[in-house]
């Protein structure tokens, strides 16, 4: 499949004059990514609503099309035909640029994710950057700027408050996320996602998630990814019952749809990164299954993590702002630092004595850190809230 | 390919613009931004000299920029904290109105 895709691309590129060939090559790499992830977005919205419905003992959308699968089409049509309202006092330029910047950055980050590998060693990746991981986070962090622009330009107190909450949350969770990713960088010794996937080839026992530090870093990364993409239980920035829709309050029509799209694409990007860093990317779990194309493995793992995210969203209630920041700074950040040290130790131990000793020496510190930090969080402030007048 | 003098020219322009911003604007935060601009002009110079210099395999220019980035981040944090403290005390961010040194 990878060979087929790559040769199709080469054939098509060869049709263009020599001057335009690099441009055509990039366009042909971009188009499938755009198409596939936009399709994923449409499908995820409806499947998420159906799954949430089932979790809450409801049916979920089942009216439009067979089993409600055409619901995103109806939603999209509704969004497009809605009136585009810009508040009178708003800063029109910035108000317009915010969703554009957000959607652009959400799409840009997919350009370093490898989706497959041909037998001759070429990878299915839009751009193979040596510093792919830094690129991912640099571009991903622009979302904060876009959120600020949206909140500030709307001239609305709720929008501003929502934007400030969102930025505080994103900055707080960026630190543990980067640190948990650094463990993988430490072990694989490269910032290129293609290289990182390469170190996990040859069976699931090579995946980073199946090490003491990897499992913990994977969970930390997933938590931070939830917070970065503003999903429940970390959806305070756009809490409907508190500040309506946060920074999106003054947006309607297609601009709102862009925010919505960017939110899901951000989630997909984080999921793709989690698959690439911890779950072996496009590599099959056992080498005998290598005849199944890489993109299928990639999207299989992708779907599993997305389903896990939907499950979380159906289960957990929204955190309070102070609980959220405490979780980030008091639990996740020290945990990530501990994991960094454990990963360094693992690298040393499993190189010299083998992975069995690695497990023996590296899992106790992780469990200890988890227990101690978990208890530290449940102190005076972090514990269950005492209501003075109710009891 | 562009030559070294192009980069130096751009960096000189950026540096003077940063200087102008620092000297001309009234808002304390913009003064700080001007300083950041000058720092970045210097960084651009470092990288340009590294790349066009005789020995690009030695990475000293890049390392200098790396350190300078860290210093700039620290400077921004402290500078903004100072602006905030001054604002809390005098509710002023206009550098022309911060003219009392009495504690």
């Amino acid at each position, binding site marked *: 499949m990878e060979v087929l895709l790559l040769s199709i691309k080469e054939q098509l590129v060869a049709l263009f004059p020599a001057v335009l060939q690099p441009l055509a090559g990039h366009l042909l790499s971009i188009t499938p990514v755009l198409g596939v992830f936009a399709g994923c977005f449409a499908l995820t919205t409806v499947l998420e609503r159906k799954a949430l419905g089932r979790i809450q003992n409801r049916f979920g959308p089942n009216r439009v099309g067979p089993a409600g699968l055409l619901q995103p089409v109806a939603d999209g049509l509704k969004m497009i035909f809605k009136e585009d309202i810009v508040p009178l006092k708003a800063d029109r330029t910035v108000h317009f640029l915010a969703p554009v910047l957000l959607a652009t950055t959400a799409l840009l980050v997919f350009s370093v994710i490898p989706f497959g590998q041909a037998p001759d060693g070429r990878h299915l990746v839009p751009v193979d950057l040596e510093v792919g991981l830094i690129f991912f986070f640099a571009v991903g962090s622009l979302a904060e700027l876009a959120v600020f622009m949206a909140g500030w330009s709307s001239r609305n107190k709720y929008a501003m408050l929502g934007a400030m909450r969102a930025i505080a949350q994103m900055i707080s969770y*960026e630190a543990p996320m980067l640190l948990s990713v650094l463990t993988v960088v430490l072990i694989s010794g490269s910032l290129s996602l293609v290289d990182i996937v390469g170190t996990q080839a040859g069976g699931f026992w090579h995946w980073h998630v199946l090490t003491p530090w990897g499992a913990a870093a994977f969970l930390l990364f997933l938590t931070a990814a939830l917070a970065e993409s503003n999903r429940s239980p970390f959806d305070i920035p756009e809490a409907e019952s508190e500040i309506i829709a946060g920074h999106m309050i003054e947006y309607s029509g297609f601009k709102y749809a862009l925010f919505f799209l960017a939110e899901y694409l951000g989630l997909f990007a984080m999921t793709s990164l989690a698959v690439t860093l911890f779950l072996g990317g496009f590599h099959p779990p056992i080498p005998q299954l290598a005849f199944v194309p890489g993109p299928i493995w990639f999207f299989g793992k992708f779907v599993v993590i997305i389903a896990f995210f939907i499950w979380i969203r159906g289960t957990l209630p929204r955190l309070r702002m102070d609980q959220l920041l405490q979780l980030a700074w008091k639990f996740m950040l020290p945990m990530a630092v501990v994991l960094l040290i454990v990963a360094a130790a693992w690298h040393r131990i499993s190189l010299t004595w083998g992975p069995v000793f690695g497990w023996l020496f590296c899992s106790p510190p992780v469990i200890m850190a988890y227990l101690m930090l978990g208890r530290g969080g449940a102190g005076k402030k972090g514990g269950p809230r005492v209501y003075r007048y109710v009891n | 390919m562009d030559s070294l003098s192009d980069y130096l020219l751009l960096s000189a322009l950026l540096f003077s613009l940063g200087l102008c911003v620092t000297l001309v604007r009234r808002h304390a935060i913009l003064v700080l931004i001007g300083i950041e601009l000058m720092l970045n002009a210097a960084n651009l110079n470092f990288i340009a000299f590294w790349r*066009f210099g005789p020995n690009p395999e030695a990475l000293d220019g890049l390392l200098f920029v790396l350190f300078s980035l860290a210093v700039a981040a620290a400077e921004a944090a402290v500078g903004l904290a100072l602006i905030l403290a001054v604002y809390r005390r005098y509710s002023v961010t206009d*550098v022309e109105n911060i003219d009392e040194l009495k504690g």
Partner: protein
Amino acid sequence: MSLTFAIIAAIVLTGAIGLSVLRKTVHCVLSLTIVFFGLAMLYIRLDAPFLGFALVLIYVSAVTILILFTVLLTRNREIETDVSPYSRGSIAGLIVGGSVFAGLIWMIYRAPLSRGITELESPASVKSLGERLMTEYVLPLEVIALLLTAAMIGAVIVAMKDPG
């Protein structure tokens, strides 16, 4: 001068000029981010992609957001009204800036610059950068780490509401 360089330089200068003439402080900060994007592109063009992305990561996501937070926390009534955003001695400032620029130009055109460029086999690799950082430059690294810690603690103490 190639077309790409001209475009990037135009972006950088647009941002820089915007930041010096725009009235609202938030607009100034947003045009500062344009400058940083342009600079990051220049770094990538100069075969230092790691520094380019690090610049975006540090400046756009950390420093700019910090500045924006400060702008929002300090509402300046004097400046946001009709008073000119430029200080009283702005003519003198412009003269100083202009003369510095003239001096720099003079120096650039007098300096014996090498016009050629040494070809690199590959862009500066992060690995070699890290190795230099951990062997030869380990003392500066430690000092920078100390500086950052001191700056963080200092900033927190200075900006604390009740210094006690």
